[in-house]
């Protein structure tokens, strides 16, 4: 049988035997998103001469974070819940040659790590953040997250969620991220392109991918993916009667100096001054 072309980016075998299949539940969107990320990286390595060694995966804790745990044939840090971005920040700034791929979730980035998220965007760090938004806490058993829709029932909102939900893309844009896009697992090509653009952008890129959790929403994966088509609308085509639909597309695409290039200028001016003194 012909092997999947992206398998080369995974460690299929470990000392205790097979590492695959992924530990995700059947129908989970995480594997799809990992595939999108690999396809973008594969393009950069093969077409643009990026070095494989420079890609580093950092994740926090959650179902999405397990993607970095067992399988990756890349340097990878599986870190602590919500602290994904500060650890990636340290790695990136200490070695600006790296291309950190931050894998995060709606809880990891929108709740416990919310402040780090705002400040990573504000600093315009050269990071690519891929947020797998399943609109709940998958790992801990399907509790509400900051992106759980109003009215949705979850294990911690048994009578329906009465809070407002967060739009993580609007938040990223307002906080200063220079590339921001939202797609879903029903939009594979768009997702790969967005991740590719994110990796190429010298600054903070935030790509949110709506990713189904059939287990906790107790729905069939195919139904959920179909809804990702039906219940979304392209940002630029949004009309008034689209209220209630989820906007998808590019929220931000602009250039601005990233943290490291601004810091480099400071270093140069300090060092030149020292020489003159």
């Amino acid at each position, binding site marked *: 049988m012909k092997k999947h072309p992206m398998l080369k980016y995974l*460690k299929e075998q*470990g*000392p*205790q035997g097979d*590492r695959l299949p992924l530990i995700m539940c059947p129908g989970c969107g995480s594997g799809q998103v990992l595939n999108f990320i690999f396809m973008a990286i594969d393009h950069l390595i093969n077409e643009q001469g990026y070095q494989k*060694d*420079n890609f*580093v995966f*950092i994740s926090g804790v959650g179902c999405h974070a397990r993607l*970095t*745990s*067992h399988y*990756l*044939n*890349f*340097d*990878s*840090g*599986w*870190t*602590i819940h919500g*602290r994904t*971005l*500060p*650890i*990636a*920040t*340290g*790695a*990136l*700034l*200490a*070695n600006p*040659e*790296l291309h950190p791929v931050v894998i995060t979730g709606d809880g990891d980035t929108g709740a416990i790590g919310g*402040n*780090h998220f*705002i*400040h990573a965007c504000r600093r315009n760090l050269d990071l690519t953040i891929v947020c797998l938004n399943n609109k709940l806490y998958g790992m801990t058993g399907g509790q509400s997250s900051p992106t759980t829709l109003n009215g949705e029932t979850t294990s911690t909102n048994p009578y329906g969620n009465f809070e407002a939900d967060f739009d993580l893309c609007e938040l990223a844009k307002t906080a200063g991220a220079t590339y921001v896009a939202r797609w879903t697992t029903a939009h594979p090509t768009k997702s790969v392109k967005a991740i590719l653009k994110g990796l190429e952008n010298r600054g903070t890129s935030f790509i949110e991918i709506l990713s189904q959790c059939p287990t906790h929403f107790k729905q069939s994966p195919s139904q959920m993916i179909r809804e990702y088509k039906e219940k979304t609308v392209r940002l630029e085509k949004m009309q008034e009667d689209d209220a209630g639909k989820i906007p998808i597309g590019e929220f931000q695409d602009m250039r601005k100096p990233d943290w490291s290039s601004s*810091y480099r200028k*400071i*270093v140069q001016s*300090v*060092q030149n001054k*020292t020489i003159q003194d």
Partner: protein
Amino acid sequence: MTQDIKFIQGNEVCVEAALYAGLDFFAGYPITPSSEIAEHMAVRLPGIGGKFLQMEDEISSICAITGASLTGHKAMTATSGPGFSLMQEALGYAIMTEIPCVITNVQRGGPSTGLPTHGSQGDVNQARWGTHGDHAIIALTASNHQDLFQITVEAFNLAETYRTPVILLLDEMLGHMREKLIIPKVDEIPVVKRLRTAVPDGVDFHPYLPREDGRLPMSDFGDKHRYNVTGLYHDMWGFPTSDPQVIHGLIHHLMDKIENRVEQLTRYKEYFLEDAEVILISYGSSARSALHIVKNRRKRGERLGLLELQTLWPFPAGLVRRKTRQADFVAVVEMNMGQIVDEVKKVVDQHKRVFLVNRVDGGFITPENIKDMIRLIQGRGV
């Protein structure tokens, strides 16, 4: 050759020593009485091409230094009590993943906001037990600027040697006090470099397989080896495991690499211990007053001695037992409700002869305070 002599604050000593030790990455969040460390780092690092970063809080500060360390850089953060509390989860992550780094805590009075501008030694036990789960830790302190320089360099050396976070406990008094410092010459204090794996490209690298000498070579993130890091129990490849044998091995490794090396890790100073009837045990800035009173009483023929601990964790139990054997009684001088005194009681032959001499009202413990309490203990009245 002329000496490089400075008259500076303890916080600045810590910065100069960290740079001497090879630090080139600092992330922190301002908090009294540690802020001068961040401020001096901000001045010094760009000039040497290092990175200074003011983070959004202390959680992200410690996380950033672990990330930087994974790429092969020597890194430190500095804080005080409230910030040190926030760092505890990530401290456990650095312990579990065996990431070398230094965390400086310039102690102030607690709990909570407590006494921001007053000295305290109330975080000694938090340094030991603050993060959850069984673990071992190295925590060092010093009582004067020359020692602080040496101990700070050693903190970085021990972090690299044992692949572990090291906690440097200063206090407000030491951090803000100015005194003379002679900057050691290059190579006067040995500096331990990052130990990197010699495994060639393409051969499996085991980031968690100790060498015969117990050390674990690393590979920088971005280097050619594949390096996986997780806060879960993991195997020698760094991949998660629930195999009881591997779990058992890892927790014992994490404990033993420090607890079995107490002698190598112990740093201390001693004054007049040989014939001492009364032995003071102290550390950090309290030891300055303790030393003062010991010297003073010696002039009057009283047989007082001082054991100054610079390694607080792992607790130098053997040293304390040996040194106190002949004493009539032992007085532990510290600015807290008795954190090291309990450790001393655990290890001396007769714990009833161990007394706490402390001060916890925000004022600095003076030689007079110590003298009065020793007279009380001796039944001589104040």
